[in-house]
């Protein structure tokens, strides 16, 4: 199967990527069918998702096996590091698109709809006289009906504390790993994953409360759209990050990683910090200001 080229490991032949493509095609094709009203398409989606999960287990399993058997030299390790950093950078820009939408709506779109800045020639006030253009808003059409918002200094603030502390615990885990203190490593990692799950539980509770009691939904005009898109997308990333850390925990328990050699752990930690920083942006701009 493998042919190492000099010191830099070049795998020879792989079936995982094509499997990933087939899985993604099935999942998204099925989703498109579902959205177009094909009721049984959810089965197609499930098949696609199973293929993707199998692919990820297989692909990462292969890589972990190679890593543990010492196939990767320092240069390969550096390639992985660079790759992960650029991947996180691309995620930052994915979030930037949604933050941009939020800022644009608040700074331009909503005030303009209320007639600001066009020297009295704006069409908004003719179509929708009396629209105030204050934030939060579901727009002049009152899309989704009246709603209440979630105050920043309740669950969101608690969640901020949780996520920031989990950034601390993952760092403690890293220090423990570097000092080769396996027990501490596992415990701090466990604490990190647990904090992540508590965060998700609280977020889930908050969403349910918003839908059930506040009438704040994805359909609550531009406020609801930006709110749920940003927090929901972030929640998805917390989930991914927590799964990554959970895998790291299991691997640590199995005795993987050495004080010098633990790129996967660091990648998961970087990802976790990225998710953390995004949350702080969310807390400030979505909940607080």
């Amino acid at each position: 199967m493998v042919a190492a080229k000099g010191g830099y490991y070049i795998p020879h032949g792989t079936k995982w990527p094509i499997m990933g493509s087939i899985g993604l095609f099935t999942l998204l094709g099925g989703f498109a069918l579902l959205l177009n009203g094909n009721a049984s398409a959810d089965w197609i989606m499930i098949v696609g998702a199973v293929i993707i999960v199998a692919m990820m287990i297989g692909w990462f399993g292969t890589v972990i096996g190679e890593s543990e058997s010492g196939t990767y030299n320092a240069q390969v390790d550096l390639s992985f590091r660079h790759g992960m950093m650029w991947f996180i950078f691309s995620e930052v820009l994915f979030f930037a698109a949604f933050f941009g939408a939020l800022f644009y709506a608040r700074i331009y779109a909503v005030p303009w709809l209320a007639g600001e800045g066009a020297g009295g020639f704006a069409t908004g006030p003719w179509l929708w006289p009396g629209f105030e253009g204050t934030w939060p808003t579901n727009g002049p059409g009152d899309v989704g009906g009246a709603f209440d918002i979630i105050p920043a200094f309740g669950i969101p603030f608690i969640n901020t504390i949780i996520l920031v502390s989990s950034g601390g615990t993952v760092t403690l885990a890293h220090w423990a790993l570097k000092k080769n203190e396996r027990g501490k490593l596992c415990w701090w990692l466990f604490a990190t994953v647990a904090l992540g799950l508590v965060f998700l539980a609280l977020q889930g509770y908050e969403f349910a409360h918003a839908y059930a009691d506040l009438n704040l939904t994805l359909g609550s005009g531009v406020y609801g759209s930006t709110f749920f898109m940003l927090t929901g997308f972030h929640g998805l990333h917390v989930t991914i990050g927590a799964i990554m850390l959970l895998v790291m925990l299991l691997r640590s328990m199995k005795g993987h990683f050495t004080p010098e050699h633990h790129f996967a752990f660091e990648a998961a930690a970087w990802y976790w910090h990225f998710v953390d920083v995004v949350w702080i942006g969310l807390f400030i701009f979505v909940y607080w200001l």
Partner: protein
Amino acid sequence: MSTSYAAHADDHHHHGPDPGLLRWVFTTNHKDIGTLYLWFALIMFFVGGFLAMGIRAELFKPGLQLLDPHLFNQFTTMHALIMIFGAIMPAFVGFANWLVPMMVGAPDMALPRLNNWSFWLLPFAFTLLIGTFFLPGGAPAAGWTMYPPLVLQGGANVAFMIFAVHIMGISSIMGAINIIVTILNMRAPGMTLLRMPLFVWTWLITAFLLIAAMPVLAGAVTMLLTDKFFGTSFFNAAGGGDPVMFQHVFWFFGHPEVYILILPAFGIISQIIPTFARKPLFGYESMVYATASIAFISFIVWAHHMFTVGMPLSGELFFMYTTMLIAVPTGVKVFNWIATMWRGSMTFETPMLWAIAFVVLFTIGGFSGLMLAITPVDFQYHDTYFVVAHFHYVLVTGAIFAIIGGVYYWLPKWTGHMYDETLGKWHFWISTISVNVLFFPQHFLGLAGMPRRIPDYAVQFTDWNMVSSIGGFVFGLSQLMFLYIVVQTIRGGEKVTERVWEGAHGLEWTLASPPPYHTFEEPPHVTEAEAHG
């Protein structure tokens, strides 16, 4: 960079590719994957070209003859999406796969499995996209720019189009990460950054643009998806959103995207011209800095596509000035290419012909871009055929000419055979004449007020449309010559030496033609003499 290439026990020796067709599905070899990308791009070039022939046939005379208006709109939309995401971008990634490892002295791409995935996502993405032609209501028809609210009225194709864009985005981002990491981490000893061939430099910067721009497109289409299917109001004014907001997000991706489509072309041209002028590239470092500043400025010009949507005056002015600024580094490049040729011992083999045509014709596109950058006059030109002429000069006589020139330049290296020089020259002259017959009159049509994206037009536009269509048919047919020449060269022909062109510099020319399946397993030591081709 590499330090430890200590010998590593091979499980067993692989000197060549696996037998059988599945080789292409499972391959992790950068040359194989480069070949896959290039073939995929060529196929998409003909699919997109077929749609273009349909468009030009309909526009041959006024009135509706071949395509009903809805189908016509599907053709223009899909033509653009296929050419941009299916032909030009994959072709450049194919070049990068083949050349970057050989140019920097690396054994392969940094992340070979990921490299396979980047390619193998594309056929699936385009199956989703092109499959929409067979849905009730047909393919997307609201333009490649996907503006809401029109695009959301598209019916069954909307979700498929959005997911196709997502998959293409994953492919581009993964591909770009691989290229950037290869360039930053896999260079042979002595291959310092400022010794890299310019093609590698332009791809480094293009990869950065891709990683920064493609996620923004993904975000934009995700908001389209939720607006259509999940009740959000991002682009709905009644809910406090704004359709113009989509245009901002889209063009924040879109303008860097047009530089993604041209920077690798700059790189190819910067390799070809020094070879046939037999002089080193003039102003190598200034080329690097010009490329970097183009990339930077390309993030702050996006609203020049939106001068007529009703932006505040300050915005119109800001985007006008930044757009004109981008002409400065672009001008530096054109100047340097010309200065490279100045007093060189030039010969005019086919690749050089395409490169020279690129310099002249791309510059025409740059000039029309400058005209469009002037806000008050863009009020007249916007959404007319003048814009169509502009972007076809930069994309067809720019990007595509560079790709074709690059294929002629490196095909002997890739196959070991020389292409048929006479046929190549015929291909060049027929293409170059017909492409101008095709696109130059569109400037006149646009200035006279013919709108873009319509299947019918007022009778006074007939003459130039007929001329343009004739040019289009000739250009389209002449590309079949290209296919013929490429296949013929792969199958046989005069054997070439390692260097192929007497004036060629760079590591790839030190390898055999065709290069063995695995190259630079031991890294070369790069000296000044073999630096930047």
